[in-house]
C-alpha cells in the first residue's frame, strides 16, 4: 500500500436502501429494515433485499448482449452520484489506459443461464443455443467487462470472485495495480444480484433466516440475501489533489485453511486478515473508531467474528452489521461496507444493527444496536467468505 493510503475520490452504492448515497445515508439513519418477504418453491419463507426498478433498466445498444440483472444493476449504480462522470474526468486527465477496473462478484449474471435452462427450447435441445450470450452474462468476468466498456476505460480489467470477500478483495487488487505503477486510477467495486443459485444454495446449507436476520443476537438464525452494486474511484492522494475525504489505508487478507463453508472455530484466518490490516494501517486497536462487521447473522460466522475481534483487542470498539437492513449482498458486501461506513463518516454517526434485539450474552463485542451520533476517523470493514477467504479493509476519513 502506498504510504498515506489511496484517495477514494468518488463512490456510489445502490442497495435495498435505494439508489445512491442519499438513500443509503437516510436508510442507515432510519434504523429500518428494507428486507421483504420471499417464498421459495417449496414454500419456505425467507427475506430478500431487492433493488427496485431493475426491470426498467436498459443497457446501451452497443452493449445489448450484456443485458442481465447483474449488469443492469451495475449500470444503475454507475449512472448515480455522478460516478461515471467522475471516471470520465479521470480518464481525460490520466489517460484511459492508466485507469483500471477491478470488480468483485460471486455469481455475476448466472441468473441468465438459470432462466435459459428453464426455457422449453433448452429442454428440447438439451443444450443452450449458440447465440446465448454466455460470455456477456453468466461468465464471472461479464460485469468487469461491462463496466470497462461502459466507462470506456482501457487499463487492465479483471473480476475478483472469492465469494463474500470479493468486493473487499477488489479494493486490495486495485490498490496493488496503483502501487505497482500499472494504473494511476482504478475503478473498484462490487456487484451481485439476486439469483436462484444463491437463494437455493444457502437454503440447502440451512443458512437462510426464516425471519429478519439478527446479526450477533442470541436468537440469530441465518442470513437474508440481498443485492447491491457499488463503485469507488481510487487513486494516489497526489493524483487526486485532495487532502480531505476518504482514504483506503490498508488491506489484509488471509485463508482459513479449514473448511469450505464453516469459519475456523478459533477464527485464526479472520485474525490474520485483521492483524495484517491493523499493521498495514499503523492503527492501534484502541485507535479504531468503528468496525463495519461482516455480521451475517449465522450462528457460527458471528461467533467466529466476535472471537476474532476479542483476540485482536477490538472488543471495545463500537461495531455494527448492516445485513439486517439490506441483507447479505455476497460479492458486493465489501463495497457496501466501504460506502456505508464512508457515509457514516461523512455524516458523523455510527450505524446501528437493525433487527438485532440484544447482543448474544456469550459475545464480547461492543455491538451498536441503534445508530448514535459520533465521529469516525478510522474504521475497519470485515468480510469473510466461503472457501475460508477473509479480507479486511482499513479506512480513514480526513475531515
Amino acid at each position, binding site marked *: 500500500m502506498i504510504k498515506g493510503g489511496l484517495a477514494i475520490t468518488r463512490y456510489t452504492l445502490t442497495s435495498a436502501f435505494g439508489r445512491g448515497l442519499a438513500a443509503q445515508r437516510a436508510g442507515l439513519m432510519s434504523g429500518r429494515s428494507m428486507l421483504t418477504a420471499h417464498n421459495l418453491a*417449496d414454500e419456505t419463507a425467507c427475506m430478500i433485499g431487492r433493488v427496485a426498478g431493475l426491470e426498467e433498466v436498459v443497457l446501451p445498444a452497443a452493449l445489448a448482449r450484456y443485458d442481465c440483472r447483474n449488469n443492469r444493476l451495475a449500470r444503475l449504480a454507475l449512472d448515480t452520484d455522478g460516478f461515471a462522470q467522475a471516471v470520465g474526468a479521470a480518464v481525460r486527465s490520466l489517460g484511459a489506459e492508466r485507469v483500471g477496473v477491478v470488480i468483485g462478484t460471486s455469481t455475476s449474471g448466472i441468473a441468465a443461464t438459470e432462466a435459459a435452462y428453464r426455457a422449453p427450447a433448452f429442454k428440447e435441445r438439451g443444450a*443452450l443455443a449458440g447465440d446465448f450470450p454466455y460470455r456477456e452474462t453468466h461468465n464471472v468476468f461479464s460485469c468487469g467487462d461491462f463496466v470497462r466498456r461502459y466507462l470506456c476505460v482501457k487499463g487492465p480489467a479483471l473480476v475478483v470472485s472469492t465469494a463474500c470477500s470479493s468486493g473487499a478483495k477488489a479494493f486490495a487488487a486495485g490498490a*496493488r495495480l496503483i502501487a505497482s505503477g500499472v494504473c494511476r486510477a482504478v475503478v473498484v467495486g462490487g456487484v451481485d444480484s439476486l439469483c436462484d443459485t444463491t437463494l437455493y444454495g444457502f437454503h440447502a446449507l440451512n443458512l437462510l433466516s426464516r425471519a429478519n436476520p439478527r446479526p450477533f443476537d442470541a436468537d440469530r438464525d441465518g442470513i437474508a440475501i440481498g443485492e447491491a452494486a457499488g463503485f469507488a474511484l481510487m487513486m494516489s492522494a497526489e493524483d487526486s489533489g485532495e487532502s480531505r475525504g476518504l482514504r483506503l489505508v490498508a488491506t489484509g487478507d488471509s485463508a482459513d485453511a479449514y473448511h469450505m463453508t464453516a469459519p475456523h472455530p478459533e477464527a485464526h484466518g479472520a485474525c490474520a486478515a485483521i492483524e495484517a490490516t491493523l499493521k498495514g494501517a499503523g492503527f492501534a486497536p484502541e485507535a479504531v473508531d468503528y468496525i463495519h462487521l461482516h455480521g451475517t447473522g449465522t450462528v457460527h460466522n458471528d461467533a467466529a467474528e466476535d472471537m476474532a475481534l476479542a483476540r485482536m483487542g477490538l472488543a471495545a470498539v463500537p461495531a455494527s452489521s448492516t445485513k439486517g437492513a439490506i441483507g447479505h449482498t455476497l460479492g458486493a458486501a465489501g463495497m457496501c461496507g466501504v460506502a456505508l461506513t464512508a457515509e457514516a463518516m461523512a455524516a458523523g454517526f455510527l450505524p446501528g444493527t437493525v433487527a438485532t434485539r440484544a447482543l448474544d450474552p456469550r459475545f464480547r463485542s461492543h455491538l451498536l444496536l441503534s445508530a448514535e451520533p459520533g465521529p469516525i476517523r478510522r474504521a475497519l470493514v470485515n468480510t469473510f467468505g*466461503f472457501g475460508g*477467504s477473509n479480507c479486511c479493509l482499513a479506512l480513514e476519513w480526513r475531515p
Partner: protein
Amino acid sequence: MNIYVAGWGVLAPGLPDAAAARAILAGEQAYRATDGVRTPLAEGLSANEARRCPLSARYALDVGRQALRAAGWDPAGVATVLSSASGDLEIADKNCRALAQPPIALSPILFHNSVHNAAGGYWGIATGSRAPTTSLSAYDDSFAAGLLEALTTVAPDQPCLLIAYDLPPPAALAPVRKIIAPFAVALALTADRPSGVGARLSWRWGRCNPVTDARLGESALEELRVGNPAARSLPLLRALSARQPEAFLWGDADGGGLHVALTFEERGSTDPHHAP
C-alpha cells in the same frame, strides 16, 4: 523489482507434468495429446474432502504442488493467485439443471463447490496455508490477468504461486463456450534470486498495437494454446523449457497488454545482494 520463476507445473492431455512437458516443449520429444493423460491428484486432502473436491480444483492442486516441489518451497507463507476464465462449468450446469426441475433442491456440496474460489479454498485446506489467496477471471485474458495479479503480489519476503486452469464445458454449455481440453499451469514466483540458473521476468503493462500472439510451431500445441485460456501460458513454458530468452506480449481485446521479458541469469553473474 526482479521476479524469478522458481518452479512450474503443468497438466494437460499429453503434458502429464513439468518434466515430460519440458522435453516436449524443448523439442526433444514429439507432442501427442493421447500420451500421458493423467488424472489430477488431490494431495493433502482428507478422504472426505477429496471425495467432495471437484475436478477443476484437483487440476489446480496438482499443478500448484508440482510448482512448489520444483521450487523447493513449503506452502505456508506462499500467497496464491488462482485464475480461471470460466470456473467449473460442470457444476454450474448441474446447479442450473437442479434449479430448472421441480421440486427444486440444490446439493449443498455442489453449491459450495460452485464458488469461483472453490479451488483456492481446497488449496488452503490441502496445504494448511493461511497466506493470502485470491481468485479471478478476465475471460480469455485470464492467464495474463492472473500473471499481472501475481506479479503485483510478489514482494521481498512474499513469494506468490500463480495457478491458472480451465476445463471443457459439459455438452449443454458447449455451444456457448469453447474450451477444447483441460489445461492447468502453475508458476512459483519470487523476488529472491534462486540458486542455479535464475529465470527472470521483467514486465510492464501498456499499449500494444497491433497484437501479435506468440505462436507455437507444433500445430496440436498451437490448437491447445488457442483452445484453452490457461494454455496461453504455453509460449512462456516453452521458453522456460528451452532456456531461451524471449519477450512475450499478452494483449487484451482493448489494445492493452502485459509485456514480459524472460532472461536467464547464470549463477554468480548478477547477485543483487552483493551488488556494489
